[in-house]
Each structure stands twice: as C-alpha cells, then as structure tokens.
C-alpha cells in the first residue's frame, strides 16, 4: 500500500483532520456506551447476581416489584424451590451520621439466591437482624459491625458482610432475613424468583410470570434510559458514516485527474480501490485507538459517582463499529474511482 501511505504522510494535515474527527466521535461513543452500561448496571446488577430466569409477581403490578403483593395462598401454591422476596426502600443511617438510600431485600438464608451471593469481606450471615450489604456501603465509609438505623423505625441492622455488584434501581441493596423485614412491611412477599422457568399451569390465578429480562426492562425508568442512549449511539454511528463519506469524497474528487492518468498508465482500479479502503481503515484504527486510551483515562479520572463502565465488550463493539462505518464511508469514493474514465481525463 505504497501509494496510500505516501499520500497520508505527504498530506499530514488533511488526514490528521479526518483522524481527529474519527477520534472525537469514537471518544463520545465510548463514553456514551460506558455510561449506558454503567447506568444499566446500577439498575440491574443485583438481579444479574441472582442468576435466575423468571419471577412471579402480582398480575396488577405491571412488573414492578414495589407494586406487587402476593397473598399467602398464592405463595403457597407456587413450587417451593423459588426464593421469596420482600422489598422495602428506605433511608438508613450509621451511628456516626453516614446516610444512604437503600433497598432492603429480605430472603431466606436457605434460598438459592442467598446461597449464590458472593462476599468481598465479612461473613454471609443475616440471622438476628444482621445484613449482608452492597459494597457501595464500604466505599462510602461503612464498616463490618456498624449498625444501620432504618428511618422511621426502631430497626437496627448489623453489617456482617459486603457483597459486590449489589445495586437495584440505582440503590445499594441490604440483604436481610424475612424476620427482620417483618416490622417494616408486615411480612408481605412481593415476588417469588425462580432459577428455572415455570410451566404456565403452575402459575396461580392473579399472578404473572415474567422472564428476568423483561422484569429488568420494566424496572422504573430503565427502558426509557437505555432507549435514549441507544438512540444517541445510533445517531453517532450515522454521523461518523456521513463525515467520513464526505471527507473521502472530497479528497477523491480532488485527485480524480491523477487517478485517471494512473489508470491510463496501467494501474488497476482494484489497486486504487484497495488503496482508499486501506487509508480509511488506517485512519479509523488510529482514531479508535486514541479514543479508547482517552476513554479509559476519562473513566479512571471521573469521580466514582459517575457510573461509567468501559469494559472489553464495549471497546470491541465500538471499535469494530467505527471501523465498519469508515469502510462503508469509503464506498461512495470507491464508486468515483471505479467510474473515472482515463479517456475523459485525457480527452480534456
């Protein structure tokens, strides 16, 4: 690709400008995808940790845990390998004044969800008003043995362990026992979570089974948020496609006479087309690499309250996406190259 490289080195300014544009858009894309993933995680991380496949809620709850109340009969008629969940959102304070909005989630210590929970420090114990809490509490200054004072109640929960990735609807989770939550919600079960999908005949009247995926989509605000991000991300891909097309088109039109003469001199169309594709590829790779590096640096330097997650799959998807867009962007210029008739150039 002698011609392609020589041209880029000779016309550094032009090609750097295109690289800069690709970089800026890729950077924005990486940050946006990072934020989308980060916010999605904040909403659903705890549910992912459960590793379940379905959830049974009250039919009138519209898939919302907080609005779902199951009667004792309904719960009793469901298979008993499910995990009964009671949920209560509230403000908790430590004795030395730290505050946190939290989701209290009660479940049986023999349930499959509780057995699955990972612990980063402390022990996995929720007996006698003890709680296993999200490690967000740890980063906010809470320690093992601290008491969480539940607002508007006399309940005191002792922190026995920290568990990773435990956020639900953007709030950290406090796992407690059904006995502990009794005083707050009179022991109501909000939902029953299953590791497998239940046969429809096993779902009692008045209740509704949702897959975990659609349950997540119905989390308050979740779908709207993800849709907004996906819209912006999709738009950026279109913008980069148009920008690259325009730039390459202008560059190609400027050098059409030269390309025509090269064809007359026996340079194949294929060589010229590959040359343009190669340039497009190189520019997008450079732009994307700089964007990834700066994106990572941004993610590290941003305060931890900003929920940005730049993981491998994000980087791979964005990188490949941009490179594909830049190759597509070369299609119009390639048509120009294929069409240029050396005779027209020579004939004047």
């Amino acid at each position, binding site marked *: 690709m*002698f*011609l392609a490289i*020589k*041209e880029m080195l*000779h*016309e550094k300014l032009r090609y750097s400008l295109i690289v800069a544009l690709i970089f800026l858009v890729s950077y924005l894309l990486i940050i946006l995808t990072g934020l989308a993933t980060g916010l999605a995680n904040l909403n659903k991380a705890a549910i992912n940790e459960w590793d379940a496949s379905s959830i049974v809620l009250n039919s009138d709850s519209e898939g919302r845990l907080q609005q779902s109340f199951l009667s004792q009969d309904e719960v009793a008629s469901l298979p008993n390998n499910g995990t009964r969940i009671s949920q209560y959102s509230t403000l908790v304070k430590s004795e030395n004044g730290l505050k946190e909005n939290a989701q209290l989630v009660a479940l049986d210590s023999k349930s499959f969800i509780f057995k699955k929970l990972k612990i980063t420090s402390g022990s996995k114990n929720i007996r006698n008003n003890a709680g296993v809490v999200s490690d967000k509490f740890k980063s906010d200054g809470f320690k093992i043995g601290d008491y969480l004072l539940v607002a508007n109640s006399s309940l005191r929960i002792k922190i026995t362990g920290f568990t990773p990735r435990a956020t639900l609807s953007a709030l950290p989770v406090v796992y407690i026992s059904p006995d502990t939550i009794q005083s707050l919600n009179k022991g109501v079960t909000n939902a029953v979570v299953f590791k497998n999908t239940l046969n429809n005949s096993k779902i009692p009247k008045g209740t509704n089974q949702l897959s975990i995926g659609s349950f997540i989509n119905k989390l308050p605000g979740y779908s709207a948020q993800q849709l907004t991000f996906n819209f912006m991300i999709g738009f950026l891909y279109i913008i980069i496609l148009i920008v690259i097309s325009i730039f390459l088109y202008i560059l190609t039109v400027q*050098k059409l*006479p*030269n390309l*025509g*003469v*090269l*064809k*007359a*001199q*026996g*340079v*194949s*169309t294929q*060589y010229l087309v590959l040359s343009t594709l190669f340039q497009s590829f190189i520019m997008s790779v450079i732009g994307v690499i700089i964007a990834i590096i700066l994106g990572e640096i941004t993610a590290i330097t941003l305060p931890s309250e900003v929920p940005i997650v730049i993981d491998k799959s994000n980087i791979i998807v964005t990188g490949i996406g941009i490179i594909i867009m830049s190759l597509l962007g070369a299609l119009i210029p390639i048509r120009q190259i294929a069409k240029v*008739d*050396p*005779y027209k*150039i*020579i*004939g*004047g």
Partner: protein
Amino acid sequence: MSNLIFDSVTKIFGEGSSKYVALENINFEAESGQLILVVGPSGSGKTTFLTIAGGLQTPTNGDVKINDSTINSLSKKQQTKLRLEKIGFVLQSYNLVPFLTVEEQFKFVDKLKSQNLTEQKMHELLSDLGLLELLKKYPNQLSGGQKQRVAIARALYTDPDYILADEPTAALDTDRSMKVIELLRDLAHKRNKIIIVVTHDLRLKDMADKVYQIIDGKMTILEK
C-alpha cells in the same frame, strides 16, 4: 521488432441525429525506431486516435493490432495490464503523482510491475534527461519542462514498446518544446521504441520520421 497497426478503424460517438464520426477508416502503421507525429486542428480526432491506440477506447469498426495481436477485443483488465507492460503514456498534465518525489514515482512503478529498467540503464536515462539532481523533489517543485522530462522517464521506466504522447509540449515554450521532441526522437532511434506524438504545433514536424495529419477524422500521411 514491434509494430502498431490500425486496420480500417472508425470511431463513432453517439447515435441517430447526435451521431458523430470522430475517426473515419483510419489505416496507420508504425514500427520500432520511429518518431511519428500526428498533427491536426482542434477537434479533428487526435486524442481519440491516441486513446484507441492505447486501449483506453475501443473502435466502433476495424482492428488495432500491437505486435500482430488485436487489442480491441481484450477485456478491460487485460487492456490495463497491456498498458502497464507495453505502453507508456505522456500527457499534457497530471502525469506525476503529486505526493511522490521524482525518485518515488519510479519506486511506485516497481510496486506494480517487477521487470523494469536495470539500475544502470535507469541512471543513464536519468542523466540523459538531466534529472539526477531532481530525484528528491516533489512535482510541484519542478518547472513545466522538468515535469515533462520526468513524465517521459517514468513512461520509459517500464521499458515499453510504445510511447504515446498527447500534446506533451503544450505547456512549454518553443525552445523547450524542441528539446523535448528531440529527446523523444533520440529515444526512438537509440532505444528502438515506437513514439507517437500528438500535437497541433506544426513547427515540430521537421523532427519526425513520419508525419500524419488528421482533419475531420480522416488521416493522411504528409510527404516531407
């Protein structure tokens, strides 16, 4: 010995009422070691003739033969390859790749085609053309005459059987035009090439071995 033959070549553009006969029943023959001039007024069909000779256009009727094989029935790809290997084009402008130095123009040819002039022959050619001091320069740092000389060297570098030149002197003053034509004549004689130069500059005709004239698409040989 190579040769180039036009056998009753006609080129018609358009159809019906917009039909235009650009070349009419052309018979033409050139052999190695000749500098041939094709002269004629503007719009007479000179460029059309040259592009058909180089396989850039196909004749409507008749055959073009290079070394006794017909080129107008070749595929586009084969014609491109033929141009790379057997034909050197020298045009009025755009001959050189703007972002390559003089030296790199030749290196680029090396990337496309393996058998080119040996280093020694190349050195000889460059010194004949007075280009040895210009190797590191870009085309926009050269004068018109220098550019044209580089274009000629580039065309010769692949050691083609033919050089087809369309108004190679149009950008040059009379003195320099004479020099370029002299150079082409020497190349035809010394290196045994077929060199066809299209021009409307009649002052150049004394330098040629044969002069053809095209008027309104009809070709005649001019007696000297």
